[in-house]
Structure formats: structure tokens, C-alpha cells
């Protein structure tokens, strides 16, 4: 594999590129349930894992396993019933700019242009000066939206909206970026384009990223580490290290032996979990089981 960097000239980057301060999040015995006493449904139980500093951690698990709940807990929108969530040793007590979240659907402010959206954080904190504007312009270029800087979100395609949102989060220089199935609902072409954009943004910054998905190909292409979750209540079932070298390109990963090996391993673990929720009556799990069996029969002859 030939590693070619696609970075901008150092001179341009030097003035605007922020110093990356990667953080680390540790969950210890976190539990969370919803509903009234006696009818409470436990969504997360004694869940512990580490989001390692400067790594791209991908969490994957069957639909409805409690991944979104974990995200709300990590972001600080909700509090765990028991257990602790610490970022760099400090307990998380609410939302903060050190942990920014990209939601499943776009949360760009519809009344602001792309540029205004990206500038929201700096302006809100009274840092809307020339330096931030230059950095916003730099990020716009990074996500390929310079021509769309004065367009409103409704004038952007689904993929462009996601890229604008990545830029809006990154300008705040969070210690950890949290992404909740960000590319769900995009068509196959835009999705693969987004993977490459996102992977190269990560490879350049080496910021701590936590990425939640249900798509195994997405997970393997992007991840340094994959956390495979159990069926609800959510816990970590297995951790797989993906030691495929970076920068990664889609063409490389498709033919990478190690990547295919990991995929089979991950799929069989996911299959077990899906079977459990299938037995519990989950329709999404039934779809997964069917797709999985087709995939395995196709993969075997190799």
C-alpha cells in the first residue's frame, strides 16, 4: 500500500490549524434505565470501556441495543443511574465543548448559512475574530464546501450537510468527537465519499473520535478499535483492534486480507447478538440475520 498524504501546504496550514488536544473518556460500570419504578427497562447495564486518546473507536451493535443512550450519556445530555463517566479524569456533569456530538440527522441551524453555522461556536464564546474566520475558511476548504459558504442548509445535499456539520464541530477543537450514525440515510455513493472525507480528516488531526454505527463495512474502514456491543442492556461484548495501516483508501481495504478476516470475526459475534434480539422479537434483528446468512454463503468460496 502506498501512503500518499493529501494535506495542504504546511505554510497555509500552520497559521490556521489548531493544536489538537486529544482527550480520553472512561466509562466505569455505567447503568441506565427508563420508565417508572417496576416497569423500568434497563438499556445499559454495568457498561465499562475506554475511548482511547487519539484513536478512532467505533461502536457497533444490533439496532436498539442502547447505543444512542450511551451517546446521550457521553454527551452529558443525560446522567447515568449508577457508574461514572470521566473525561481525562474529570467526571462529566453536562454538555460541554470538550465533547461535541454529531447527531443522526442534521442539526445545522436552518437560518444560518454554511459559514455562519461553522462560526456559531466561536461567535457564541466571543471569539469571532479574524483568526476564527480564517480557520472557518480553512475548514470549509477541507470539507470541500468553499463554493457553498453562503448557502443555507436546505440548499446543500445530505452529504454536504454532514460535512458542514463536521466542520462546525471541529472548529471548536473538542477533545473528543462523538458521532451517532452520522452517515445513515445517505445514498451508497455519498456514503463512501463521506467515509474518505471523514477518514482523512481524522488521519490529519488524530483527534479522539467515537463513532457509532450499525454498518460493519463502515466500522472496519474507519476504526482503530471496534467495540462490539451485546443486545440490550448494552455492554461491550468484544474489542477488535484493526491494525490496517493509515491513510486508508476504500480500494485498499476491499482487498485487504486482514480487514476481511476481522469482518468475518465481527459478523459472527454480531450474528450471535442479533439472534438473541431476534428471539426477543426484534424486526431489525430478523433483517440482519437474513442479510448475514446471504453474506456468509457468498464469502465462503474464497
Amino acid at each position: 500500500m502506498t501512503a500518499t498524504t493529501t494535506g495542504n501546504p504546511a505554510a497555509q496550514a500552520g497559521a490556521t490549524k489548531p493544536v489538537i488536544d486529544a482527550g480520553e473518556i472512561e466509562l466505569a460500570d455505567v447503568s441506565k434505565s427508563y420508565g417508572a419504578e417496576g416497569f423500568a427497562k434497563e438499556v445499559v447495564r454495568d457498561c465499562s470501556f475506554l475511548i482511547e486518546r487519539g484513536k478512532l473507536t467505533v461502536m457497533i451493535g444490533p439496532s436498539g441495543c442502547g447505543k444512542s443512550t450511551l451517546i446521550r450519556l457521553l454527551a452529558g445530555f443525560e446522567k447515568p443511574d449508577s457508574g461514572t463517566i470521566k473525561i481525562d479524569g474529570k467526571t462529566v456533569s453536562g454538555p460541554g465543548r470538550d465533547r461535541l456530538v454529531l447527531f443522526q440527522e442534521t442539526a445545522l441551524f436552518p437560518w444560518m448559512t454554511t459559514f455562519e453555522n461553522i462560526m456559531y461556536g466561536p461567535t457564541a464564546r466571543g471569539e469571532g475574530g479574524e483568526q476564527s474566520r480564517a480557520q472557518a475558511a480553512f475548514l470549509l476548504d477541507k470539507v470541500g464546501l468553499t463554493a457553498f459558504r453562503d448557502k443555507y442548509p436546505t440548499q446543500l445535499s445530505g452529504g454536504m450537510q454532514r460535512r458542514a456539520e463536521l466542520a462546525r464541530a471541529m472548529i471548536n477543537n473538542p477533545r473528543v468527537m462523538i458521532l451517532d450514525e452520522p452517515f445513515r440515510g445517505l445514498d451508497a455513493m455519498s456514503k463512501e465519499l463521506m467515509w474518505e472525507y471523514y477518514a482523512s480528516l481524522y488521519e490529519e488531526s488524530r483527534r479522539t473520535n467515537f463513532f457509532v454505527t450499525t454498518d460493519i463495512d463502515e466500522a472496519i474502514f474507519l476504526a482503530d478499535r471496534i467495540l462490539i456491543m451485546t443486545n440490550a442492556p448494552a455492554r461491550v461484548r468484544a474489542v477488535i483492534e484493526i491494525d490496517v495501516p493509515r491513510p486508508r483508501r476504500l480500494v485498499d481495504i476491499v482487498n485487504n486480507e486482514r480487514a476481511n478476516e476481522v469482518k468475518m470475526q465481527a459478523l459472527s459475534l454480531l450474528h450471535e447478538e442479533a439472534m438473541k434480539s431476534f428471539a426477543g422479537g426484534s424486526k431489525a434483528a430478523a433483517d440482519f440475520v437474513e442479510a448475514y446468512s446471504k453474506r456468509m454463503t457468498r464469502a465462503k468460496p474464497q
Partner: protein
Amino acid sequence: MSNAMVKFRKAVLSRSTRRALTSLLVFVLLWELGSRSKAWFGVAMPWVGNIPAPSAVLAAWSKLVGDLGYWQSWYMSTLRVLAGFIAAMLIGIPLGLMMAVSRTFNDITFPTFEVLRPIPPLAWVPASILFWPTQELSITFVTFLGAFFTVVINVVGGAKSIDIRYFQSAQAMGASQWDIFRRIVLPGTLPSIVVGASVGMGITWNVVVAAEMISGGGGGQSGGSGGGLGYFIWNSYVGGSYEQIVVGMISIGIAGYLCSEGLRRAGILFTPWLRSR
């Protein structure tokens, strides 16, 4: 044929324009026919015969165009509508925003608001005449009520339906409460404010005309010239000049249309992100 010419022709002769013109023409024609004969194609239409013909209305109108009193009526009604409408916006928008933002404030004000809201503005006319020192103020107050409740309800609904993720994102990026109010709540509510304003404006015109008729036109010193278009219609009815009744009616229609159109344009100006898709 030049390009501009083609464009002009297309605009004038577009299907919608042709339909609009045809509809208006047929309407006026039927009206004219109806008022000239007691029967349409053998069917008796006695009530249409009592209405002045469009040609007669037009003749009366052409005489009124030079009359200062007629324009004074326009002026007075428009003034009352604008005064009532602007007061409704100035009081209604902050009130609605406060009700949406503060739970405590909402708990205190909402019950009173909900009891007062179903009372039709016209039911306020007698009380308002008793309460306010001048006739003028009582008419404006009733006009204000017409728009006020609609504006408040729309603002509250609009502010409450803003996506919670916008607040979460803004908060996470380090925005203060004031910044969230100014840059999320306010623009997020703007489309509903525009809707509330245009609906409110329509009600305002309904109310002002009725209020002018009931209260006798306010401080009209020179024989009803200060009475507004509502009083103009009523006065024409009492005086037996039936053409002028219709002139007054059409005048209100035109005035209302101009106000709605103005508001629509202003609305587009204030919410540029809604038209660009």
C-alpha cells in the same frame, strides 16, 4: 421578436393570468347582467337586482376619487389597523416568547390568556367604549385585540416546536442562555411570527370595519370623514347611496390585499432561508 418581448408575453398570457382575468371578467359580467334584469335565463334572481350594477359603482367611484372625505376614510381605517396591529406585535411577540421560554411565566399567564382568548373582539366594543377616554382609542384597542391573541398563540407554538437538538448543539458549543435566545429561539420562531402576523392582519381589517360601524366612526368632526371605511359604508347605507356601499366594500378588499402583500414581502425578507431551496 426580442427576448424581453417573449418574456413579457409569456407573463401576461400565462395560463394563470388568463384564468384570473377570465374569472374576474365573468364575475363582473354576471353581476352586471343580474343587476340589470330581474331574471337570469328565466330564473328569478330578485336579490341580485337590488345591488347596484358594476357600471354604476364605477361611476360613483370615479366621482369619489376626487373627494377628500373618501380618502380620509381610507387614511383613518389604515391608521387604526396599523396602530392596533403594531401594538399587537410589540406586546404579543415578547409575551409569547416569554410564555414559551419560562415555565413559571407560562403557568401564571396562560390561564388568564386562555379565558380572554375566546371572547370575540367585537364583544369588547361596548366595554372598550366605556373604558377608554376617547372613541379613537376604543376602536384601536378592539383592533389590537383582533391581532393580539393570534400573534401570541403563533409565537408560543413556533418557539416550542424548535428542535431540541439545536439547543443541545448550541449549549455544547459553549453558547450562553442569551446567545441561545438571540440566535436560536428568535430566528427559529420567526416563520411562526410571520404566519401570526399575516393571519392577525386579516382579522384586524375584519374588526376595524365592524368597530367603526358600531361605534359610529370615532372622532369624525366633519360629517363622517373621520369615520373610516366601516363608517363610510354605514353612512352610505343610511344615506341611501347604494353604489357607495359597494365602493366601500371593494376599497376594504383592496386595502386588505395591499396589507397582506406588504406583509408577505416583509416576511420573505425576514426569513431568507425559507425561500431558497
